[in-house]
Each structure stands twice: as structure tokens, then as C-alpha cells.
């Protein structure tokens, strides 16, 4: 059985991210088993609930929310990459309001290791 893991390293306002999400949607249409999507580097910015993109531009997070709800697509966030970019996830982020989008699972790079070992293909965007 084909199992796909996806790594996203580009921010929500980049057209490179549109490609990644189009690819994920195409895989879901083809009934590919996606074991999870891991957000690293600037990809972590997707989890920032304070990011607002003009309504006539591509809404990466709205799309991810839809895929998460409709297909149970697992969205894993590298917490170290996120904190570096002002995304606060829990009480440890004292002094800053929690601003993580709850569709993301707070993870570490260890999750990337398990997605890699549990998939037959790892595709980086």
C-alpha cells in the first residue's frame, strides 16, 4: 500500500505552498493514504492564527482546514520552528497570547522521523 508523507517548508503567502496543497488534494482524490503533513521552517507560519491574507488572495489555511475536516488530514507543526516565528502554543509561552490554529498538532522533529519511517514516499515542498 502506498503511503505518502509531505513536508511543507514554505509560508502561507507563497505560491509554492499552493503547489503543495494542490498536490495533497490530487493525492486525496486518487485515494492515496497520506500519513501526515509536517510543517517545518517557514511552513510553520501556517499555524499562526494572527496571519490574515486579503480575501481575494489564496487562502492556504482555509484550504488546509477543509482538508483536515473532510479527510482527517494530520497536520503536524514543528514547535521549535513555530516558536521562532512568534507562534505560542501553551502556558510555557508566558507573556504572549496563545495564537496557534487548533487544526495543527504540536509536534517536534521526532514526528518527522516517524512520518518518514511510516511512509513509502516523502515529498518535500
Amino acid at each position, binding site marked *: 500500500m502506498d503511503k505518502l508523507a509531505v*513536508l511543507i517548508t514554505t509560508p502561507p503567502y507563497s505560491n509554492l505552498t499552493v503547489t503543495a496543497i494542490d498536490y495533497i488534494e490530487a493525492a486525496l482524490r486518487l485515494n492515496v493514504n497520506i500519513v501526515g503533513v509536517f510543517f*517545518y*521552517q517557514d511552513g510553520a507560519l501556517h499555524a499562526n492564527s494572527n496571519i490574515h491574507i486579503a480575501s481575494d488572495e489564496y487562502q492556504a489555511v482555509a484550504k488546509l482546514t477543509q482538508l483536515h475536516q473532510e479527510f482527517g488530514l494530520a497536520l503536524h507543526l514543528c514547535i*521549535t*520552528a513555530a516558536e521562532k516565528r512568534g507562534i505560542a502554543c501553551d502556558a510555557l509561552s508566558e507573556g504572549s497570547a496563545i495564537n496557534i490554529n487548533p487544526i495543527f498538532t504540536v509536534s*517536534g*522533529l*521526532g514526528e*518527522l*522521523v516517524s512520518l*518518514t*519511517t511510516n*511512509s513509502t*514516499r*516523502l515529498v*518535500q515542498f
Partner: protein
Amino acid sequence: MTTNLLAIINSSAPYNRNLGKESLDVALIFASFEQGVSLFFQGDGVYQLIDQQNPQKISAKDYLKTFSAFEFYDIEDIYICQESLTVRNLSESFHIDNVQVLPPETFAKHLAMHQQILRF
């Protein structure tokens, strides 16, 4: 030839962006989870290996020093693209030992031995 799970291609010079450090973090975590990882240096990535650098002059964290700890992480398969050194007029003086300089064909053969490949 190695049977490591993951190959990481390092293609960025060390300081402008944080890619080299973020790549190193991925390598160390795979190794800590006892998943074999091999490192490939190509293009400007070879600048991560050259000797006598002084990152403190530009207030950059010297993550290159961590390369010397690879033995404790069982990271042993480190390959450098010979052609990338040649076009940059670099000699084979690296700040770590036990690296293999390979011509592109052999570099490619080693790369193909891995199940998954990331590039930073």
C-alpha cells in the same frame, strides 16, 4: 554502500539563511531515533565543510562545530561532490575528518541507495 533510511542533501552556504542549521537539526534527530542518516554536500553546501571559518565575526552561531560530534550520533556517511569543490576552486581541507569526496556519478550512486531524500 550504506543502507541508511534518509539522505540529506545540503546545498546552501552556511550563514545567509538558516538552512544548514535546520538541516543539521533534522540529521541529529533522525540519528537520535536510531534511524540511519547520510549527509551529502553539493553546490554551495560544500562551504559548510571548509576549514578555518570564523562565524563569530558576523555573530553567527557556529553550528559547524557540531559536525565534530557526529561520531556520538553514529553519523558516519558524509559525502562531498568533487565537482562542486572544483568549480569553487576549493581544496580538500575540511574541518571534519572521515568525509568522502566523490565524483558526480559515484555521489549519485550513493544517493540512490537511500529510501527517502530531503534537500536543504
